[in-house]
């Protein structure tokens, strides 16, 4: 005899959250692996500080500020969703996207000026790692922006799938945390 | 016996490695016989018979679980035994090299072993250095120190009869040592894939008797002085 049961399926919010945490765990290993290589190589090879001095700590500080702020607006988008405030959701998502784009803009400016100075990925170990780490990170920012745009479009039509804002937020904050470590590792420690 | 396939050991430290090999061999052979034996016996004893039901044993209760845990504890003890024996031998081969009586530099490159002898003055970088490709001449019963380098990719210096192997990596320098106990000619295959010429990258180790070695030295460095100033007892 079998018993009738309504559903075994858990809420998609919970599923999504667990999935994205697994994703973050593996991303920690990806970035962790790259950072670990950088730390090891930098401790082993002297003379990197002079190279690091070419970077602009001011631009990076601005960029850090931008990303931190975008994390806040992302969190606030979710808070707005919890209050069923559709306009708030759209507004904060838009802010997050714009801040993300601003971050990429500043990053692109940095890249261009370095390359104009002849500091390309193949100009020595420091630069190889600089482009590797910031490049990987920038790719994640781009992915996050795409996700946020999708959510923004969906939120414009209504909030049925608004729980995804929290899930996307987890990813966005993770990318922020990566930057929190890249900032001192690349720009401040010389 | 299975281990007879190993090439003859002609080094001082090889016997210890071989004895650990034997230890592991007997331990694992015993376990193989016990486990596979039990498997076959159980499979035959308990094959399906009409009207006979299987027993209900979950193995969760301690008296049952003991059948699982006691052998496992035994495995743990044997493992530790293998580890302790291994630690000593490893330290002897790779960590505590005795002072060398002959120092030779071996450089791997695609696809040759460049062997550099310091010459009579015993030092590298002097004009009497001599490079011979793929021929490593040493004297029996002397401690030979090798400085290992690579010019391009990773190679691996393998001396099966001496129980010696070491990768060489470009940009780094390694040290290895051995003391051969028997004269003869042995091959030195390269054991790390290093490109299309990896297969066939072979050198030769020539272990001379003391007299032969002196003769060889005289031939290579016709000058009066001997390369073994400090220590020339056989």
């Amino acid at each position: 005899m079998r018993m009738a049961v309504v559903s075994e399926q858990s809420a998609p919010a919970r599923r999504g959250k667990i999935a994205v945490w697994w994703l973050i765990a593996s991303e920690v290993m990806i970035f962790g692996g790259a950072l670990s290589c950088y730390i090891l190589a930098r401790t082993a090879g002297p003379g990197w500080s002079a190279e690091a001095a070419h970077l602009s700590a001011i631009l990076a500080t601005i960029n850090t500020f931008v990303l931190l702020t975008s994390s806040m607006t992302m969190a606030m988008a979710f808070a707005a969703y919890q209050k069923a405030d559709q306009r708030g959701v759209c507004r904060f998502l838009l802010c997050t996207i714009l801040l993300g784009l601003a971050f990429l803009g500043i990053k692109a400016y940095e890249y261009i000026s370095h390359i104009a100075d002849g500091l390309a990925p193949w100009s020595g170990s420091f630069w190889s790692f600089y482009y590797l780490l910031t490049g990987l990170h920038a790719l994640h920012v781009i992915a996050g922006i795409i996700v946020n745009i999708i959510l923004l479009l969906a939120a414009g039509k209504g909030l049925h799938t608004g729980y995804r804002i929290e899930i996307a937020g987890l990813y966005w904050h993770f990318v922020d945390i990566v930057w929190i470590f890249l900032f001192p590792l690349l720009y401040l420690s010389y | 016996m299975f281990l007879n396939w190993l090439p003859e050991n002609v080094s001082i430290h090889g016997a210890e490695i071989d004895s650990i090999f034997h230890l592991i061999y007997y331990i694992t052979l015993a376990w193989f016989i016990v486990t596979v034996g039990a498997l076959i016996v159980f499979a035959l004893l308990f094959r399906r018979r009409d009207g006979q039901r299987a027993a209900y044993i979950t193995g969760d209760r301690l008296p049952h679980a003991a059948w699982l845990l006691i052998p496992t504890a035994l495995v743990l003890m044997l493992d530790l035994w293998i580890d302790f024996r291994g630690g000593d031998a490893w330290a002897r081969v790779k960590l505590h090299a005795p002072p060398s009586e002959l120092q030779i530099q071996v450089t791997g490159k695609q696809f040759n072993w460049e062997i550099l002898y310091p010459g009579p003055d015993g030092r590298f970088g002097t004009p009497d250095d001599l490079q011979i490709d793929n021929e490593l001449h040493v004297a029996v019963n002397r401690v030979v120190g090798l400085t290992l380098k690579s010019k391009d990719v990773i190679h691996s210096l393998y001396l099966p009869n001496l129980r010696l192997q070491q990768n060489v990596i470009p940009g780094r320098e390694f040290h290895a040592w051995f003391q051969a106990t028997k004269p003869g000619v042995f091959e030195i295959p390269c054991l790390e894939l290093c490109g299309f010429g990896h297969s066939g990258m072979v050198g030769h180790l020539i272990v001379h008797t003391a007299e032969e070695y002196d003769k060889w030295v005289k031939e290579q460095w016709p000058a009066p002085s001997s390369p073994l100033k400090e220590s020339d007892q056989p």
Partner: protein
Amino acid sequence: MTADRAHPNYVAIWVWLVILMLTGVLATLLPLEKSAVIGLIFAVAAVKAVLVALNYMHLKSENWLIYALAIVPVLLVVAMTLVLFPDIVYRH
């Protein structure tokens, strides 16, 4: 998991983050020894990361599984780095 649970004050956290960020930047200007400065700026970074994780990522109100998912990989990476130190950094 309930919607009515009070969430952290996101703006206050942000203010803290910005203050910490400036602390980190200013620390590089301090007339301290290099290792002390480095220690300081990474301590600041760690605090910032923890703030983001706990508040923005709601780690504060999660169960053990999510905590494990956040912490285990970090420990693993740290362990890996430490194990590789003798090999890569102190090579002769």
